[in-house]
């Protein structure tokens, strides 16, 4: 009982730190979003919903929100497709070599995003190995950078190590005996995957996918460096509003709408997952 109380106290400390470092700044940001921009960091004194109305009725802003959501969702889905088989192999392997691979994976997760993105610019640039190979095959020397495709690749690379680690934990919880029983019953690999593994790891996949999606929605570096000014996403737009226009209220309103959008999508997916019909529909769609 005493132990439990000290754990609770430790949680309280973490909560307090989160409150000071996250919630309080967010509150000031939220507050600023309701005021008019007077220029050079100054804001008006009459609160209104004007900034929100302007953003939500402007096709330009809506287009940027749509592009950000679409890119984030596509990158999360591609990430899941790559991470799942990788995580499965890692989770099912009995080799001690696998531990080394997991450590490597962890290390890549800690490598700075700038370093990762610069690596991609070399790889995907017109002098990189992919373009060189394509040039020798097709004669074309096009760079693969500075478009939505490049940004999507960057987002996948950004979230992939985390996705593999999350799914590794999920697959480890599925008893190996279930797969053996299915195999004894004559199930093919595909059927085993469809009827045993995917349904049992479904919740974990959704959670991992949502985490990757959330990370992608806020990703700035990949969009700036790989998009080369050609791909405007909400985080890039927020940075431009602050640096170029020094328009804190609209930047704050964009940030609030981005957070609300991400929160809403997460709640929506979680609600759908909990409802029996929604869950079975989602499982069917996945299978």
């Amino acid at each position: 009982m005493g132990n439990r109380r000290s754990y609770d106290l430790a949680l309280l400390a973490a909560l307090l730190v989160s409150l000071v470092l996250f919630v309080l700044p967010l509150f000031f940001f939220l507050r600023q979003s309701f005021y008019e921009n007077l220029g050079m960091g100054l804001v008006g004194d009459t609160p209104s919903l004007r900034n929100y109305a302007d953003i939500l009725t402007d096709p330009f802003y809506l287009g940027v929100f749509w592009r950000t959501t679409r890119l984030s969702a596509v990158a999360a889905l591609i990430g899941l497709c790559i991470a799942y088989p990788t995580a499965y192999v890692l989770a099912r392997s009995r080799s001690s070599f696998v531990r080394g691979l997991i450590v490597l994976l962890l290390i890549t997760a800690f490598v700075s995003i700038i370093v990762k993105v610069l690596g991609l610019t070399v790889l995907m640039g017109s002098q990189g190995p992919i373009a060189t190979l394509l040039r020798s095959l097709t004669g074309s020397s096009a760079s693969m950078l500075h478009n939505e495709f490049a940004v999507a690749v960057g987002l996948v690379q950004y979230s992939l190590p985390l996705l593999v680690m999350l799914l590794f934990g999920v697959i480890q919880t599925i008893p190996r005996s279930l797969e053996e029983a299915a195999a004894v019953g004559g199930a093919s690999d595909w059927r085993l995957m469809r009827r045993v593994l995917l349904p049992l790891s479904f919740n974990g996949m959704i959670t991992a996918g949502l985490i990757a999606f959330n990370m992608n929605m806020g990703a700035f570096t990949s969009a700036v460096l790989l998009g080369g000014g050609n791909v405007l996403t909400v985080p890039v737009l927020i940075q431009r509003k602050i640096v170029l226009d020094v328009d804190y209220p609209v930047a704050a309103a964009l940030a609030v709408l981005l957070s609300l959008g991400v929160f809403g999508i997460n709640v929506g997916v979680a609600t759908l997952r909990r409802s029996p019909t929604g869950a079975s529909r989602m499982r069917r769609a996945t299978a």
Partner: protein
Amino acid sequence: MDRLNRIDRRSLLLAAGAFAAVGPAELARAQAAGAIKVATWGGSWRDSLDKLVGESVRKAGGSVDYVVDTPQGNLAKLVAARGGNLPFDTMESGLELVQLMAADRFVADLNYDKLPNAKALPDFAKAKNYVMTLGSMDGIVYNHEKFKELGLEPPKTYSDLGNPRLAGKVAFPDITHTQHWNAVAGLAYEAGASEADLLKAIPLVNKIKPAYFYSASTELSTKMAAGEVWAAPWHAGFVVRLRRNKVPLSISYPSFGSKKGSLWPVLHHIVRGTKNEALAETFVNAYLDPETQLAHAKATGVLPISRAAIKGMVDDPENKGVLMLGDAELDNLFVVDFAKVKLAEWRNAWARDIARG
């Protein structure tokens, strides 16, 4: 081995003792004189500035550090710090920011009595709250070997960058970049307008369809050197700097009506409320010294404001033929008149109407 260890320990103790004695003394000396932060561009520009101008601050017993960003990015830092600790003491900027900064009183009025080197400058370089230090000479930087391979003539106008044979190989300065303004003004002139109606440049930028909008020259340098980009509106300084690494670059200077080529004046401000005003003035004054100007201009391929320093550039083998240095040429350079530019309208149009992707 044991003896070696003893020596090592002794050396270590001696070093620690020396550090204990000298370190705090040096630190105290620097603190007494002060430490300033200068907001400027990064890469070879900052390196040259530190070597040539930063030294004056160190000689005065102070220390100097740099906040590296575009002028726009540094202004955003200044705005964010309003009412708090200043992020830097002096800053470099461009004409597009002067009105904004002066209106909100972010920059101090200069005391020219404390800047004796400014006496040699022409009057237009000495304003109430900024002094012109140097200027970049803007034009179209292109890889002359690639142009030769393609059988293309050197570009004469910014619109020439829309040649389909250059598709995917042209970069364009993004709105956060200093070289953006002369490039879009040039396109506006080519569309029959001027900086008063920059919107006329939009269809021409869309026709060029740049592969990429660069926001930092260091980034573009890498792509130019790698052959990723073959042409871009940029400034002569990078032709000089990249030629040192054998990158085959040349520059052409498009016309702006009757003017040929364009100048981007680099301005220096002292930030209002700095606690290191004397040291900031030492820095700015050293920046205006003709010999320092000449050395910095030679190193970075820009134009000194001091006419005496310009004369020294004429025979410089690296800058000769890249920069236009004749008196008549200098007098005929185009400079954007920001009193005519509708900044908010242009920023809005740049975000919305440029075809991307």
